[in-house]
């Protein structure tokens, strides 16, 4: 039985600098880094020290509470640095890939035959930490059994990578991955696809056809419209590249840490796809790619809505599969900006002429206003296709009112689902941060 959902709420932000789908350019990074902050729910314990030789798949970090949860090295090489910040918080582990044989991999477990070995395989290969669970948007806890597993096969964020374009000949692998995941849940494996997708050929999964604007590609939105998360439910989510990695591991016993990334955004000279490694350094990725126009640039690992500004010294962060470069905008002088009728201004408000133009914009990183209390009402609702009242949920989050958060559906949502709300908010509130902190707080209080 095929499920089809049609979302009306949401918003496709039209930004210049999309990468046309083409053969990706291979780029071996000069360095790779693993950042534990990218794996929420993990308390990192370091397994390596500076100077150690590692192979692709060597565990670098394990979790304090669940030692089975491990983050592995994406490449073979040498540990260059274990960087710690304030109060010795682990910030990142940097690996320099081996010049000759960066692909050398540790010995991998055999093909799984039951739930236990399947779990073992994902944990040992480090693929487990690439999945997320709802509630809380954290790495799934080992030993839990999810109600269902949701896989989103497309990213609907601005300028996002077209994942499906690179898996057209991988149906067998994807089917193998679905088979493996099926061992881990008594429920269904759902794959959210765009209408007309070829992924309908993947066997064993429930295909959910999703039409409508962003955030249609967010797994959370698909869950909410297919089978919402209730209190007590656990649902796992993953994206298509992760599913493919699981399939490759399951079918060919190969650990794949390749990642196909589009370099996008207004400030990229020639947007294109590159083939690189998980955790690749930005210095390699954007080298000679950015306009040298003297403007300040913001180099984002991820898309403009949820991505992290990492700068040129930063790294490609999990779980993002995209690099966006936009202008920072802190050097722009915008006289009487609130009165502007310039068609260059991007807005969902009909008070800007730009709203009516069907063109692509070049926004910068300014918040374009001052932070205020929530004044206009109903702004968030228009871009959140879930049965959730975002204003009230946010207020409950700010008040740290756990009962209210639960009643208003916090289990169903993660920060990325609120990204568009944050974008359109005329009061410029940091909604993703507010929700993220509330989720952390809730997890600490209830677990």
């Amino acid at each position, binding site marked *: 039985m095929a499920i089809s959902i049609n979302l009306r709420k949401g918003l496709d932000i039209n*930004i210049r600098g999309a990468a046309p789908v083409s053969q990706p350019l291979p780029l071996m990074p000069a360095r790779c880094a693993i950042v534990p902050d990218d794996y929420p729910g993990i308390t990192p314990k370091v397994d390596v020290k500076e100077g150690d030789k590692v192979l692709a798949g060597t565990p670098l970090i394990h979790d304090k509470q669940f030692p089975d949860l491990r983050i592995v090295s994406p490449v073979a090489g040498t540990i260059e640095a274990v960087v710690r910040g304030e109060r010795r918080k682990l910030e990142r582990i940097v690996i320099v890939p081996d010049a000759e044989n960066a692909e050398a991999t540790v010995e991998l477990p055999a093909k799984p035959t039951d739930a236990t070995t399947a779990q073992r395989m994902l944990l040992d290969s480090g693929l487990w930490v690439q999945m997320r669970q709802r509630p809380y948007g954290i790495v799934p806890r080992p030993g839990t059994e999810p109600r269902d597993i949701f896989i989103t096969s497309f990213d609907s964020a601005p300028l996002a990578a077209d994942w499906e374009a690179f898996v057209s000949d991988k149906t067998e692998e994807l089917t193998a991955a679905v088979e493996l995941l099926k061992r881990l849940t008594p429920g269904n494996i759902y794959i959210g696809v765009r209408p007309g997708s070829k992924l309908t050929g993947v066997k064993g999964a429930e295909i959910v056809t999703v039409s409508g604007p962003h955030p249609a590609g967010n797994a959370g939105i698909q869950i909410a419209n297919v089978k919402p998360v*209730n209190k007590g439910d656990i649902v796992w989510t993953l994206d298509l590249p992760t599913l493919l990695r699981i399939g490759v591991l399951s079918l060919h016993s190969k650990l794949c840490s390749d990642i196909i990334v589009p370099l996008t955004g207004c400030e990229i000279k020639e947007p294109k796809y590159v083939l690189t490694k998980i955790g690749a350094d930005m210095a390699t990725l954007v080298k000679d790619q950015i306009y040298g126009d003297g403007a300040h640039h913001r180099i*984002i690992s991820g898309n403009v*809505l*949820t991505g992290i*500004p990492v700068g040129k010294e930063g790294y490609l962060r999990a779980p993002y599969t995209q690099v966006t470069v936009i202008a920072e*905008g*802190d*050097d*722009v*002088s*915008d*006289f*009487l*900006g*609130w*009165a*502007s009728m310039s068609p260059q*201004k*991007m*807005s*969902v*408000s*009909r*008070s*800007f002429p*730009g709203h009516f133009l069907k063109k692509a914009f070049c*926004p*910068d990183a*300014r*918040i*374009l*206003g*001052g*932070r*205020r*209390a929530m*004044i*206009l*009402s*109903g702004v968030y*609702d228009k871009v959140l296709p879930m*049965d*959730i*009242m975002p*204003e*009230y949920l946010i207020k409950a989050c700010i008040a740290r009112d756990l009962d209210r958060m639960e*009643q*208003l*559906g916090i289990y169903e949502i993660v*920060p990325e689902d609120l*990204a568009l709300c*944050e*974008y*359109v*908010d*005329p*009061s410029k509130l940091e*909604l993703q*941060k507010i929700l993220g902190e509330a989720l952390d707080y809730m997890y600490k209080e209830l677990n």
Partner: protein
Amino acid sequence: MTTIVKALRKYLDRIKPQFQPGGRLHAFESVFDGFETFLFTPTTTSRSGCNIHDSLDSKRVMIIVVLALIPCLLFGMYNIGYQHWLAIGSESFHFWELMAYGFCQIFWKLVVTYAVGLGIEFIVAQWRHEEIQEGFLVSGILIPLICPVETPIWMLAVATAFSVIFVKEVFGGTGYNIFNVALVTRAFLFFAYPSRMSGDEAFIALKSTLGLGEGQVVDGFTGATPLGQVATFVGDKLTLTNSVGDPLTYWDMFIGLIPGSVGETSTLCILIGAVILLATGIASWRIMLSVFAGGFLMGLIAHAFETTTYPATMLTALEQITLGGFAFAAVFMATDPVTAARTNTGKYVYGFLVGVIAIIIRTYNNGYPEGAMLAVLLMNSMAPLIDYCVVEGNIRRRLRRLNSKA
């Protein structure tokens, strides 16, 4: 132009350090910040979450509302002059003379309300070390527009100060208030100085200003607003008249050449404002529509049960929504997003009840011909309750889903 802007930017950058902590003028930090962000969009970039933001900010939101009020303000000026010249028995009405007279009457009221209101906002912002918030930009123009033209300026100042402090600032500033600031100002005046807020003297400027509009008030003059006439009417055949006794047509009432509070006589100009607010999507069409629907429906009901005990029942539903402050309240007051219901379903209920209650108060309580003001204030206090019910609906739906699974 660009050189002037650049010079201005340079000048601001030069004097900025004086306003920062440690600087000579640091007591005016918020004021400086207010002016700086007014002149130049702040260059703050996002620190977390979204890397880009929509261009709409609260400054633009407020300015659009002010813009939508301009037709009412301009017409109000003209009408002040028109009513004056009508009262002194003039036969000819010179447009610019009327406008100039009206301008003189309203100008100082605007200046004083803005000075008092913004002054308090500036002080509070500095005290709290916050940015200045824009809410009063709208309240400051609304207040003179909803008061009778003869309101003494000192009363406006007192009422504005009361309202800004006790209705807004004590609750935390723009966005946190329960009641509409401008309407509380009006209500304060209405209850504190009732003799100056109603009756025949309040709504028409009779004195000459700067040599403009010299003349004696004609015999048989009455300055009562149409609703004032209704409230004091005894008999069974109601005819509304203007201040010199000529009967009023629908057209007069729609255009707004009738006595009344400055900005709210012209339904036409209010509709122009409504178009601006709805076209830009700043005000909620749900609220506006349902206020008119509620008022019209209640007007129909009241008119269907016409009785001489309550003379306002003799007004047709259409007259009910064109007269007095009803349309103004529907477009500019009920739609204040902070004090109205915030959920979509809630907005329909809220708006509808504003409309119904406005007409009920106006019709069945002769003491308060201006029901719209009281209706909006009453519903301001009910809006959180309405929203509560809507939110409970969402919560119950979630709970049912959970229970049906178990």
